[in-house]
């Protein structure tokens, strides 16, 4: 009967909306309309009204401070308040002079400390990113594959650490990592020392040895890795999760159907399709990890060389603002280059 019924009855009742509102007094005061009129008078249309606030925000709180830092980087250090020479001077003849001091940047190349700190920062950030990826990927995969209710609880747990202070959480790690701290004591209580002894006996012919308990974990690079991976893990998990949860289950079934065992399916289908998430997560861990100051300061040892600490020392211990600014600018360049490489890789992956 479908056709018959479809061809009938176009006579739906039409009530004219005008009738309902006719005769009512028009509202006199419309704040949004007033605002829009004023903005339009100033030449700010709808599109600009949306773009302008974030643009102003970036200008005032990002671009201007950056210019100030660049300015300081090109000036000369003095003992005084502020501790640098002004860039623009007015000579006695009334000419405006600008003196750019490249010496701060040249100094960076002359002292090994800075290059070492950059390379060390890159190394620590890279290793931390890989560790975070290795830990975060299975977690993100598991969360994405769990049921709806469990998924929300697990995501909540991933975000939960952000509810307490970052500094507090890093301090808490000191208690775990220190000699005879929570980890050492637990391992000792579990009798791991016997296991180590047995392993050492087996490894002795190879010349290897596992150090005996208690292990020194605090004030080493190991502590820094733990701290960075722990702190930035959610930034790895969340983009990976959003990527993996979108993965079409039919693709995994299709792969299995065509004869691929689960691990092969992971390598051929899941992993390549999750590359945008891997890159996004890696960027979110790698970039802040390069400039990290608090974690190496609290958990790292005296030999842990990171650019954030160098920066801190230049600013607050040496009070050499121009050199510190030069370090900051150089770091910006060092960070932006890998960022651009990753961005390009991500675009390439997305286009595929």
């Amino acid at each position, binding site marked *: 009967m479908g056709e018959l019924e479809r061809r009938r009855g176009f006579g739906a009742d039409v009530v004219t909306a005008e009738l309902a509102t006719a005769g009512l007094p028009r509202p006199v005061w419309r704040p949004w309309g007033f605002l829009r009129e004023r903005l339009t008078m100033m030449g700010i249309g709808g599109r600009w009204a949306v773009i302008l606030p974030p643009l102003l925000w970036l200008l005032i709180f990002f671009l201007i401070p950056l210019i100030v830092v660049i300015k300081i980087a090109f000036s000369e250090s003095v003992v005084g308040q502020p501790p640098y020479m002004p860039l623009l001077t007015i000579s006695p003849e009334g000419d405006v002079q600008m003196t750019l001091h490249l010496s701060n940047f040249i100094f960076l190349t002359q002292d090994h400390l800075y290059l070492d700190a950059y390379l060390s920062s890159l190394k620590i950030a890279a290793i931390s990113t890989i560790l975070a990826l290795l830990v975060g990927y299975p977690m993100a995969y598991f969360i994405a594959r769990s049921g709806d209710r469990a998924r929300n609880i697990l995501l909540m747990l991933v975000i939960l650490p952000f509810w307490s202070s970052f500094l507090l959480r890093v301090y808490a790690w000191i208690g775990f990592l220190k000699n005879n701290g929570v980890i050492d004591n637990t391992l000792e209580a579990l009798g791991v020392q016997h296991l180590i002894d047995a392993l050492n006996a087996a490894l002795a012919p190879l010349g290897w040895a596992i150090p005996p308990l208690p292990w020194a974990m605090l004030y080493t690079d190991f502590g820094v890795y733990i701290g960075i991976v722990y702190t930035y893990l959610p930034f790895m998990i969340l983009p990976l999760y959003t990527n993996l949860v979108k993965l079409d289950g*039919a693709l995994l079934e*299709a*792969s*299995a159907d*065509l004869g*691929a065992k689960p691990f092969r399916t992971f390598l051929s289908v899941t992993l390549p399709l999750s590359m945008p998430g891997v890159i996004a997560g890696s960027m979110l861990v790698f970039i802040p990890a390069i400039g990290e100051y608090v974690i190496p300061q609290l958990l790292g040892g005296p030999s842990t060389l990171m650019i954030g600490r160098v920066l801190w020392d230049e600013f607050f211990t040496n009070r050499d603002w121009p050199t510190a600014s030069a370090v900051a600018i150089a770091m910006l360049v060092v960070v932006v280059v890998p960022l651009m490489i990753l961005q390009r890789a991500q675009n390439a992956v997305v286009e595929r």
Partner: protein
Amino acid sequence: MLDKPEIAADARPWRDPEAKPFVKIRDVTKKFGDVAAVNNVSLDIFKGELFCLLGGSGSGKSTLLRMLAGFEDLTAGTIEIDGQNMANVPPYQRPVNMMFQSYALFPHMTVWNNIAYGLKRDHLSKPDIDARVAELLHLVKLEGYEQRKPNQLSGGQRQRVALARSLAKRPKLLLLDEPLGALDKKLREETQYELVKIQETTGVTFIVVTHDQEEAMSLSTRIGVMNQGEIAMIGEPQDIYEFPNSRFVAGFIGSVNMFEGVVTEDEDDHIRIRSAEAGCDVYVSHGVDCAPDQILWWAIRPEKITLTREKPEAEFPDANITHGMVEDVVYLGDMSVFQVVLESGKRLRVTKANSLRGDPEAISWDEEVWASWSGAAGSVLTS
């Protein structure tokens, strides 16, 4: 029942009680929680068949297909494919391939890599894979598209890539989940015949899941109609349409006029049904397994009713002729659909082929008409 045309027995193995089924589904049940998606289904499918599982959404047809592919565990029952019990055989070890409803093409791989994916899993040599992929691309007429990505293809091309990929490993059994569902009507009709042709040339057994009865009718050797997790009827397309076994099947396939009635005469060679709805007796010119005074249903297809302005000669006394008024006429080009209101108020749907161009004598709105039919035109349904 009418005599069906006899074709060589080997072409229709399901007619041969000795024939060994290729896929043996026995008492299969699948429960999701307390809900049985598939309930106690038994089904035999023979080698070289193109079997359609037809049903509405939620009828369990896709679940049954997924159990054959190994994506769902069975709650009870057994599935045998080619004599091998499929219990505990993971999907990647089954001699079965599936074409997914969404096609499930790997978006990050080229057409070539998609088709070669299954072959690589079998660790074939590079020249063998090359040859097989070329052969399949030729089969689905996609030569020259090797290096395209799925998102650079049209819907019809993706469908053909999916088909080629699922055929690549020469499966014994190919499962197709709504294979033509995502195509537009015109492309669907073309692809239907292509699919049948490919099935005939490759000789692979196809099991197709569809909700489209027209698709099922034109594709399949046999149809299994599913309703609420159970098989309502299994039969050749003609049987399903002309000899439905229940009101559900009669109503689900095509359109039908259904009348409730009471048996008044129950002889070996005929029965007579009194139906107040029809406005006349219904004379059925063959015996039916029923009892006098039994309430049953009589179903007739719209194209089996003849409309005339004059009362025709009664073929059977006081039966199979009823009177009504044309309430609506829908012109569909090849045929017209008449809606006739009977004296009982029941509406009768009648179709008539428009064999004359611009027929001036055609029956029109508000005309008094007589509807008549032959003694074998309808089906008697007891359930």
